[in-house]
């Protein structure tokens, strides 16, 4: 009990923000704000999922576009062609993504593919799925897949944003808990050791291939579920939005700017980027220069983070403590 109270005090800001997020739909009925919040939480969830292998594990994966798309298409196909409820479709999509993650992990990590080469191989995999899915008519080809509108919990489709919000909020909580459990477990220490010095980790008895593959599969599983949620949110998916390298990179940026290898970092990064991009829409485009600068805000943010706080925005928390 004592530990719980101490932990609560240490992370009181985080708990407070979570609480605010929890009661948000009760405080405000603004549909636009709620839509933005749904996107914030969705990206937080996706960022947290990538962070497991990318942040803690240090393996920069661009295969998460593949995981995302597999989850989206699986959920969509199982429902439109077989009538299976998306709740089950989500899980199956997640498992298929996990299997892909396991296979890629075994192949790449057996050959000791690291760093840049790992990044290239994972990029190729996402690209592969995009190209292939363009040519499969069963799943809609380049025109994509539309969900028939059927409102209800069984169909995982809702008119308003409140249900969507609480569902993705619950997913994000699960991702937070999983991250926390891993961070405090043997696997968490192994991942950090592998990230910092794989040879030294191996010399200490850490089976780096097993750890990386397992985490990669888990990360894929969660991301696949995220993809399934996405298709239910937008009623539509196509090869470009499903197997999107752009989305993958966007998520990576969120984690880096927010802070890799932490729980708060991915969430901060996601909120930062989504809110920023929403605010940018309201800037009057009178001055072309101003417009250009604001559009490049993401690049500027990344450069600032890289130069001044490469541990991410979350590292400001330590500076605050230090200044006290």
């Amino acid at each position: 009990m004592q530990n719980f109270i101490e932990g609560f005090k240490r992370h009181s800001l985080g708990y407070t923000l979570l609480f605010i997020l929890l009661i948000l739909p009760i405080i405000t009925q603004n549909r636009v704000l709620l839509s933005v919040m749904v996107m914030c939480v969705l990206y937080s969830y996706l960022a947290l999922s990538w962070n497991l292998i990318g942040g803690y594990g240090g393996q920069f994966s661009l295969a998460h576009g593949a995981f995302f798309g597999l989850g989206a298409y699986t959920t969509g196909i199982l429902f439109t062609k077989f009538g299976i409820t998306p709740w089950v479709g989500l899980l199956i999509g997640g498992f298929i993504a996990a299997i892909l993650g396991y296979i890629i992990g075994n192949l790449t990590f057996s050959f000791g593919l690291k760093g840049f080469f790992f990044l290239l191989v994972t990029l190729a995999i996402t690209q592969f799925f995009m190209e292939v899915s363009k040519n499969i008519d069963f799943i809609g080809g380049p025109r994509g897949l539309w969900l028939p509108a059927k409102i209800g919990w069984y169909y995982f489709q809702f008119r308003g944003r409140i249900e969507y919000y609480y569902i993705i909020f619950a997913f994000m909580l699960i991702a937070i808990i999983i991250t926390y459990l891993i961070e405090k477990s043997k696997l968490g220490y192994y991942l950090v050791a592998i990230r910092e010095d794989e040879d030294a980790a191996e010399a200490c008895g850490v089976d780096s291939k097993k750890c990386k593959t397992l985490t990669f599969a888990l990360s894929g599983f969660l991301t696949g579920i995220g993809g399934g949620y996405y298709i239910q949110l937008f009623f539509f998916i196509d090869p470009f939005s499903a197997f999107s390298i752009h989305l993958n990179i966007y998520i990576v940026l969120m984690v880096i700017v927010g802070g890799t290898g932490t729980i708060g970092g991915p969430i901060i990064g996601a909120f930062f980027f989504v809110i920023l991009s929403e605010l940018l829409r309201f800037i009057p485009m009178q001055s072309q220069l101003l417009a250009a600068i604001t559009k490049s805000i993401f690049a500027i943010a990344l450069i600032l983070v890289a130069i001044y706080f490469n541990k991410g925005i979350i590292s400001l928390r330590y500076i605050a403590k230090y200044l006290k």
Partner: protein
Amino acid sequence: MAILEIHEVSKTFGGLVAVNDVSFSVNKGEIFGIIGPNGAGKTTLFNTIGGFYGPDRGSIKFNGKEISNLKPHEVCKRGIVRTFQICKPFPSLTVEENILVGACHRNPTLKRAKRDAEKIIELVGLKEKKGICGSDLSTPDKKLLEVARALASRPQLMLLDESAAGLNSTEVIKFMDFIKGIAEEKQLTILLVEHVLQVVMNLCERIMVLDYGKKLAEGSPTELAKNPEVISAYLGKEYGKNA
């Protein structure tokens, strides 16, 4: 009783034969040194024993069982642990957490691994520094941490790769006593690669000399000090002639 048997091990990289038909054995409980000029193949030999490379030819037996086909973490689990020439602490983990990583695979739960790590921190004398991050340690402390992390894996055989490098003469003596103490207390066999002859001559019971990947000589420190081939390899042929 031989704990490690190296039999006709060779390792080639492209055209370079780094280790050439080397055979020797290390007895349980002894401190065995490997010396030789730079480029003699000492670190390659260590990497091969440790599982980072597989030998192109030959066999490596530990406690009678072949280990040449094992990966580094498997070699570690069998009871051989290796430190690195250039210290490799995990930079963003604390001293305590560094040692914990080594202790994890020997303990079923994280809690017990933490207890193990605590004991080793005490043994090694890093208690006041246990909260310091790996990247902020001084060089002698980094070396202590390397050894501590290795000890956490509960090895039977420890491979020390130029552990005394970069230490001044006082620190070398302290380090030597420390290694000797640890070896006795934990009943370790130690195989060390060294350039600092003070360490080799005073600590090792038996020594092997490598030169250009080949075994040049093997024997006690005093025997080797008189061996003309060893002297020429180290100091040049003129000195060897006069021995």
